[in-house]
């Protein structure tokens, strides 16, 4: 084949600039993100069980002792007796991949998820925001990307080029970040071995027979003839070798929820150890939410139980929050209330995000509550008291005073200018007794009129201890009534009552009523 005569220049390289974030030794990096304390140990991630487990990735300490991927665990332990082995963890890897994508999304809205610790992002045009201090803009961008990933616990390498393959290969080189100038992708790729293109095995064997060793050798072959001999896969590979992407960057859809979790080395049976590892996961989760400007509005906890079985719990929050302490308290209370009932082998938190509450400050009006602080406080109060004991009170239709509604607390913004306080009405309020206290009542003789007779003496029908507390006992000094209340006669829960305001001789102003249906007496309020 005479390459020079039939050389096809092909289409011009695309003008887009693509950055690649690449996590070397991805399973290891994901595990170290979840357990950063293992960074000081000789660590290997293994695949398989028992003596058949094989090393997938090892950190520098382990590699220094001679541990290599592919070795069995006994072999690795023979070389490095203090080797810490961890199985590959899909939950950790998934969370690390999501975190990597979120780092990329901080820089560009167009991010492609390439899986296994690789993310591509379209950086065309955003380099103008970098390089203010004389550093080349793309180099500054690359360093910023690497620093952002490092801050998220991901030691990523960065490569920037005009094609995905070139940027991916650039990201695989040491001395990150590596910048491939636009239009020089083919020259950058040419000296690299062909294996960098990761061709299919058959294709690799054919090219080996042809004597093609480097990417440059392959790129110099005429495109049409490569296509006629190697088919579609050969044509795509040839385009790639010339720095052209056969497939454009496909931006991902942001996931609806944030996921963070891990498989545990051994199943946990008590709460405190679980909360210890759960706290670290929640911290990572809240860090990710914060980096995206979001907060958690509902937290799901998925537990994998030993020997088998799954459990899912959902914790609704009164307002979006990303306070780790609050979320952990809610998880603790939920687990204490309903224990899983079996050892926990793996867990995953799923945070459903929402925009945190925001408030516009006023120069002249009263200060508004800080939305963040309020959300955190409400979540803590929910955890402390329960959701049915925190909120904004609302009256309900009807006249029964013991009834009320509780709605989520969301105060309106304060007025723009400060109002002058009004003079109070000086209203005598009633302290409601919930539930109403049953009474034994002696009334006046009603005679033959049939009118409700006023009470003359009352006694609470409660335990002696409660009687001492309530002290609704004694002779009635003044009684005013009856004031009729009738509602819901068309429903299954009708109310017909005759109300009396009474002053006891021993002191105390009470509101009593007699149930018309049963004739029973109750005290349902104290004037206070």
């Amino acid at each position: 084949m005479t390459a020079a005569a039939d050389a096809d220049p092909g289409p011009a390289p695309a003008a887009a600039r693509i950055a690649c974030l690449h996590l070397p030794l991805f399973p290891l990096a994901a595990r170290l993100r979840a357990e950063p304390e293992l960074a000081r140990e000789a660590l290997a991630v293994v695949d398989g069980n028992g003596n058949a487990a094989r090393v997938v990735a090892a950190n520098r300490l382990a590699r220094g002792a001679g541990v290599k991927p592919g070795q069995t665990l006994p072999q690795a332990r023979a070389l490095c007796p203090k080797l810490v082995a961890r199985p590959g963890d899909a939950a950790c890897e998934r969370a690390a991949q999501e975190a990597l994508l979120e780092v990329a999304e901080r820089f560009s809205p167009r991010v492609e998820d390439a899986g296994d610790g690789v993310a591509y992002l379209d950086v065309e045009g955003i380099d103008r925001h970098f390089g203010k201090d004389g550093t080349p803009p793309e180099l500054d961008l690359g360093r910023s990307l690497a620093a952002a990933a490092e801050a998220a616990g991901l030691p990523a390498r960065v490569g920037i080029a005009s094609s995905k393959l070139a940027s991916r290969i650039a990201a695989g080189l040491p001395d990150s970040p590596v910048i491939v100038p636009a239009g020089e992708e083919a020259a950058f790729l040419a000296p690299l071995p062909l294996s960098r293109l990761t061709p299919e095995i058959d294709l690799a064997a054919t090219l080996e027979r042809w004597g093609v060793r480097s990417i440059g050798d392959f790129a110099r072959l005429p495109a049409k003839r490569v296509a006629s001999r190697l088919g579609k896969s050969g044509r795509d590979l040839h385009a790639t070798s010339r720095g052209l992407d056969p497939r454009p960057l496909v931006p991902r859809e942001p996931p609806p929820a944030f996921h963070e979790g891990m498989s545990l080395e051994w199943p946990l049976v008590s709460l405190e150890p679980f909360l210890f590892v759960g706290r670290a996961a929640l911290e990572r989760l809240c860090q990710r939410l914060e980096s995206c400007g979001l907060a958690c509005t509902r937290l799901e906890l998925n537990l994998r139980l030993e020997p088998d079985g799954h459990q899912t719990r959902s914790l609704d929050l009164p307002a979006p929050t990303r306070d780790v302490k609050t979320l952990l308290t809610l998880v603790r209370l939920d687990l204490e209330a309903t224990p899983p009932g079996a050892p926990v082998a793996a867990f995953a938190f799923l945070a459903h995000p929402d925009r945190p509450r925001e408030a516009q400050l006023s120069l002249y009006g009263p200060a508004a509550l800080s939305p963040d602080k309020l959300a955190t406080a409400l979540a803590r109060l929910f955890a402390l008291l329960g959701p049915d004991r925190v909120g904004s009170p609302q009256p309900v239709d009807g006249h029964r005073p013991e009834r009320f509604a509780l709605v989520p607390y969301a105060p309106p913004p304060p007025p723009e200018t400060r109002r002058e306080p009004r003079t109070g009405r000086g209203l005598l309020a009633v302290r409601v007794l919930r539930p109403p206290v049953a009474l034994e009542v002696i009334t006046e003789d009603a005679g033959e009129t049939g009118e409700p007779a006023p009470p003359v003496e009352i006694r609470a029908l409660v335990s002696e201890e409660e009687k001492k507390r309530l002290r609704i006992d004694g002779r009635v000094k003044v009684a005013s009534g009856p004031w009729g209340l009738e509602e819901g006669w068309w429903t299954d829960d009708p109310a017909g009552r005759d109300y009396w305001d009474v002053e006891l001789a021993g002191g105390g102003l009470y509101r009593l009523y007699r149930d018309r249906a049963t004739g029973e007496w109750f005290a349902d309020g104290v004037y206070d």
Partner: protein
Amino acid sequence: MAGALPLALDTGPDDAAATAPAVGRLRAVLPADFRGRVQSARELARARREEAAEHPPLPTAVPALDRLLAGGLPRAHLVELVGARSSGRFSTVLAALAATTGVGEAAALVDLGDGLDPAAALAAGVDLARLLWLRPADLQGALASAEIALGAGFPLVALDLGPPPVRGGRGIEAAWLRLARSARAHGAALLVASPYRVSGTAATAVLRADRARAVWQGGGATPWLLGGAATRLTIEKHRGTLPGQSAGLELKTAECPPGTRIQTPAAPAAAAPRPRPAVWEELPEPRRAAGGRR
């Protein structure tokens, strides 16, 4: 002001010349670490005035309470309102909540007695949308809830302990001190309404509401109608004011005809003035270190 050691020195204007040298002499004999913590009553009073100017009080729209507390509930302080049942304690709490929410600020009610009737609160003028209602089951939960509410930045947190006895006891004094410190840290007014004294030394001011005298209308041929109640608020303790001052409080029911006048109980006879503490004209000679107990 934290950590200052108050001295029993007369702060009258006539004694200013005598006081200043006395404090100076005392400071001179104290170790250097303690010297800065010694303040005269005059200096304490000045610091309190400056603090009041920095944090204006929160008006309650209850004339009696505002008058006794010099304008309203002091911000960054704990005020305890003590009153037995039917003393107007809960009505006063609602009035304070109504005044605060009425000007557009948020407020929290920690209702240990679970006695709030939203319809009655609405009638009292409380803006329910701005009111956070917390219904703890015991005192421990109530204290924790109040502290969380203070931390959230509510300018007024009212803690009503319900009818006696308080569920969960009186609480340890350290808990009340912690709550008062939290109010101080966040600049919030904390009103504790209790059937008996609970907050100990943590309260800046303690007011007692007498048992209310019911005011009935009608009688004879017409049915009786509860028109309202009259009570009296008395200062039991106030940092900066002599105790014993009192003011009448009139409370009317919603059904009370407009224009009805409720006679408040007369003020008790004024107590005899307390003897003024003597000025330390001469400070004792500092004791020699030798001879201390081993």
